[in-house]
């Protein structure tokens, strides 16, 4: 059975989770390859650095492998994985502030293929969203990505990032307002 966790992106086969939890390395490898991209993208949105994102995801999978035997509900695999990753990212955000690294997601966008429609417009839209994201703080990025892109509810996000649900709701609301101002203003102007 294929479970559509969050309703949008991450597809997880429960069967793989069950097998991996019993120590099946092949199943875990399949699981790894099937959800690496989604976790990597989440880390990229949050951290804005390809190397940091890749490190955070690799560390997350090490944790997943070490802890998966304790996972009782295969359906919760996706949110559990995001939770581990968000903890990693939070720590990494702290390091980024210390190192004064610059969030630069623009460098991580690739040129769309020629059959992707209006390339220039596509690039410009992506770049403007990336630019807007760079002006948010790490937690706001996490929340908005989990909500808008992955379709998680505020309650689910609260559990993943270890925040009260009310805080997530208000942060999401404020983040929408910020993005609307940054993106909407652009469209209107």
């Amino acid at each position, binding site marked *: 059975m294929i479970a559509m966790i969050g309703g949008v992106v991450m597809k997880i086969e429960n069967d793989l989770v069950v097998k991996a939890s019993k120590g099946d390395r092949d199943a875990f490898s399949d699981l790894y390859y099937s959800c690496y991209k989604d976790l990597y993208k989440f880390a990229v949105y949050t951290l804005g650095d390809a190397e940091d994102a890749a490190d955070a995801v690799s560390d997350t999978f090490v*944790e997943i492998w070490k802890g998966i035997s304790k996972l009782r509900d295969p359906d919760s695999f996706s949110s559990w994985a995001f939770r581990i990753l968000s903890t990693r990212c939070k720590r990494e955000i702290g390091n980024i502030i210390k190192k004064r690294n610059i969030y630069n997601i623009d460098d991580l966008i*690739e040129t769309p293929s020629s059959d992707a429609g209006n390339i220039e417009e596509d690039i410009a*839209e992506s770049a403007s969203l*990336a630019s807007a994201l760079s002006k948010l703080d790490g937690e706001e990025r996490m929340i908005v990505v989990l909500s808008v*892109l992955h379709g998680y509810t505020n*309650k689910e996000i609260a559990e993943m990032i*270890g925040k*009260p649900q009310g805080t997530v709701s208000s942060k999401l609301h404020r983040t929408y307002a910020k993005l609307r101002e940054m993106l909407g203003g652009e469209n209107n102007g």
Partner: protein
Amino acid sequence: MDEHENMNFEHELSERFKALDKNIKIPEIPDAQGIFEVAEKETKVVPFSKIKRYAAVAAAVVLICVSIPVVLGSVGGVSMDMAANEAAEEPRAVQNESLMDAAFDEPAEAFVEEETEEPSAAPKDGFDEAATETVPEDEEQQKSISGSDGNVNSALEEFFRENSATASGNPPTGGNDGDDITSVAVDSFGADLNKKREIEVSVEKDSVSVILRDKAAGNEVISAFWVEGTFIGSGEEDDYYVINLAKKITEEDFESGNWLPMAGDAEKGTYFIDESSVEVGKKINSGNMNIRVAIHIGTGDYEITAKIF
């Protein structure tokens, strides 16, 4: 901004995110084998904790070695050789004792205090009365030093040998991990600590997640970790923020060797707490464990200790 505009914007944002998402460069995915290798390597690092465990056992042995002549001396005198040995060992013994104190005295105090403050918490969460039985600290401490052989495993083995029939009915893991609990409760605390720190404790059914932030540095996360266990209570203690949890050790967990509470953070990853951090009395009566997490508000360093009843 009305609701309709909001919905339109959310839809537009979703579409833009999807477009951006398609254009994010994905690096070559590292070979999954690397994950297993790193995990194995990290597991092999565990001997460091074993070294700590051995060191703690060695410290306990030194303590016992020193205690015996002291006890003998108080009962029937002591030879000059023993007295000389005792004198020679004393500084080390005192040092070790202070280490042991740091590990055991304070937690024991907190457990007693917490149990007194919230007597109904543990039974409500599925613990039997024995879990909340208050044992005078001195008495329990005395039992631990004079009565325990220092081997938590053998004490648990004895407990499960004697209580096999009843223990088999226990839930698989965690104190309140019954099937009837389907939702995850989230609670939080936003107390300002030292006016520069903010700590959040998210309580879930069989674990807590903790995030300590530096408010003076743009809410920088200075410590983030989680610990397995059923939340009992928490509060400030001088420079520490202390969280008390409970966990029931099942026979199944014990036999699988996975009975120690799990914890995790960014540096150590997911790990079982060190056995040397677990205190056990002369005899285990219930297989329940109280877990104490002490987070230093200034540094974010944390220590997890546990006590089995």
